[in-house]
């Protein structure tokens, strides 16, 4: 049986996803301001 450590996977996916989306949103609003 593999160890039950899915919590670490969820945490990493959430943090990674938040960072990627946050950078996409940051670029979007920064360019919108200069348009």
């Amino acid at each position: 049986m593999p160890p039950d450590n899915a919590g670490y996977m969820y945490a990493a996916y959430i943090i990674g996803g938040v960072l990627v989306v946050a950078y996409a949103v940051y670029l979007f609003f920064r360019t919108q301001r200069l348009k």
Partner: protein
Amino acid sequence: MIDRSRALQLVRRGQIITVIGLVGFVGLIVRAMAFTPVEIRQGPAQKIMYIHVPAAWGALMAIFMAGVLSAAYLWLKDDRVDRAAAASAEVGVAFGAVMLTTGPFWGKPVWGAWWVWEARLTSTLFLILLFVGYLVLRDAVSDRANRARFSAVIGTMGLVLVPFVHLTVYMFRTQHPEPVILKPEGPTLPPAMFWTAMLGVLVFTVLYFGFVSQRYALAVLEELKEDEMQNAA
């Protein structure tokens, strides 16, 4: 002469590529969680690989490109090359943040420690901090020619340090595993895991082009605004 309409066109293209990348990112998470087998010894935490390794690929590729472009700027003295280097460096730092924050969540259950001061982790952290310094330096120097020249000197370090970071696992006794994809004798992952990792690499490559296009166009728009303000003053 900088063309505003072309910059806006590039923003639009960058946004479209980014949206494709973000949709791919969701697909990557779904494939990794639901359609990729669980590794028997490490458990579900091993699936962090499908975001950690592609983020590392994206970060190191972006910083290496910043290095190539920085060296090219020192030779060509072309503003476009400087903007592209800065765009690539910023995206490298953003992907580096993903790499450095997801890694510890894999390290804790598998190594028993969030962080270990060994060669791969330490050299990667210092590489990202060097490029944080690069971005801070760019913000601190207002003269464009000086900013481009100073930052190109630091940026060129990416050319040397990225191969060094990649080779640390061979050069030193490290806790970090050796590559399972980018190795001379070919990948050693089971096919289902390999293709999920490849999807991750593709997603982060698409995001790289989307982000860099937008960041490059943003630099053009910022320079135009600076010029407008100087002309008005």
